[in-house]
């Protein structure tokens, strides 16, 4: 069964059409990167997939159910692009991660043993168990990004949708992030992520959807450092560091600044 099936989707925001006739299917167990320049529509695409942005035209099925009738939201995990975690009141790392469990929890009941295990595992997956009782505001930017991912993992989603999870994140946190996503993927989970630069995630990605001007420019295996240069719609560049192929930068930001 497909996780997401978007058919001829159009999205209009503030009177301007942002996505034009976009079709995209994500199957169970897939690990998909959505690539593209700033303003290419990649963030709008993933926000549409998780139901935050309404379709002006077209159809979207989530786990085989049209979005209007879809109710099994806890199967989705979403990690938005945020500069910082939390609101105006201090919260501990564990409190923020536990809030990701709310969709699965029952009202008027304390969180059960399953819930606590899921929260513990999510914290372990992102390597922040030792910071669980600390105020989230005292963490570094990269660690806060890991908290956001743990929050989504705590809901034990079948698909995780992440918007630029690696933006502005230090190398250690990127490695931890890649480990956590790899773990989810090996357990059969699907991952859709928006990225500007793949870094350590490059090895996990099986498919890249490249967006440009609100359309899908290409959809297929991720670009590799060698070959493909003459390919039409070629939008990737690489770091040109032959001694460091594993650090392939699929998208160098300056290539995209139009």
């Amino acid at each position: 069964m497909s996780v997401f099936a978007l058919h001829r989707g159009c999205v209009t925001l503030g009177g301007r059409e942002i996505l034009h006739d976009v079709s995209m299917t994500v199957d169970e167990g897939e690990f998909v990167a959505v690539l593209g320049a700033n303003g290419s529509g990649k963030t709008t695409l993933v926000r549409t997939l998780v139901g935050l942005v309404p379709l002006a035209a077209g159809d979207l099925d989530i786990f085989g159910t049209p979005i209007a009738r879809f109710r099994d939201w806890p199967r989705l995990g979403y990690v938005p692009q945020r500069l910082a975690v939390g609101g105006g009141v201090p919260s501990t790392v564990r409190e923020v991660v536990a809030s990701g469990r709310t969709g699965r929890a029952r009202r008027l009941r304390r969180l059960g043993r399953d819930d606590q295990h899921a929260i513990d595992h999510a914290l372990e997956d992102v390597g922040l168990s030792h910071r669980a009782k600390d105020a989230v505001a005292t963490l570094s930017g990269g660690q806060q990004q890991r908290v956001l991912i743990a929050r989504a993992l705590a809901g034990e989603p079948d698909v995780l949708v992440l918007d630029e999870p690696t933006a502005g994140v230090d190398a250690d946190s990127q490695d931890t992030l890649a480990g956590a996503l790899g773990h989810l993927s090996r357990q059969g989970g699907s991952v859709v992520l928006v990225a500007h630069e793949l870094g350590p995630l490059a090895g996990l990605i099986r498919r890249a959807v490249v967006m440009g001007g609100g359309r899908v420019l290409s959809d297929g295996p991720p670009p590799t450092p060698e070959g493909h240069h003459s390919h039409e719609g070629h939008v990737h560049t690489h770091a040109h560091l032959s001694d460091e192929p594993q650090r392939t930068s699929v998208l160098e930001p300056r290539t995209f600044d139009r």
Partner: protein
Amino acid sequence: MSFLQFAFMQRALVAAVLVGAAAPAIGTFLVQRRLSLMGDGIGHIALTGVALGFLLGTAPVLTAIVVSIAGAVTIELIRERGRTTGDVALALLFYGGIAGGVLLIGLSPGGSSATLVSYLFGSLSSVRPIDLVVIAGLSVAVIGVVAVFGRELFAVCSDEEVARVSGLPVRFLNILVAVTAAVTVTVAMRVVGLLLVSALMVVPVATAQQLSASFRATLLGACAVGVVASVGGLVLAFYADVAPGASTVVLALGAFLLGAVGSRLRPVR
């Protein structure tokens, strides 16, 4: 403890404890959402409700509740539309509320702006037995909402979009916060007054969060600070013959300063 001999002071004390706990409890969620001034906006709108009560000859508390709930829901809906920022929506309602209140009180028979003063700054000596029943019922309702929906409210107030994706009833929860805040404002109106009600929702939270790393501890600490400030403020008001709203808020601000000094000495982890 001679103030306890007076029946009106006994009633006022019970009211102060209830309001002192309820206002910061919902206030913590407003602060989490960065809508600290929402209580203030609702307080201004409630003034129109009070004046409407005088004009119609009904109990001002009833009209205040109705009008402030309507106002709070309006703020929420405007915010949700996203066309006007929450900030501007609040400003519009602030001015509309005050202007409406003064206008309506002027139209009501024998009414003048002076009539509104006890509602603006609180007047504990006016808490009648029936008021106490209403205050008690509504305070319990506010605390009940926080107890039952606290987990969901935390999720929505922390990250609305993520809460939406995880299937929480976001709109219902947002309106629940708005209505609960409106009820709190009208409950607290008698004790601290409409102009200072927001202070009792926000200052104890600001005090508690200086010494706490967690949301839960901040919420409970804020309720404790709120009860101490409102009871202390009442006693102070009794002996010094000042408006209880002012003495309560001054005490809460004093606690905030102490907390600020304390957090310097014992940094939050």
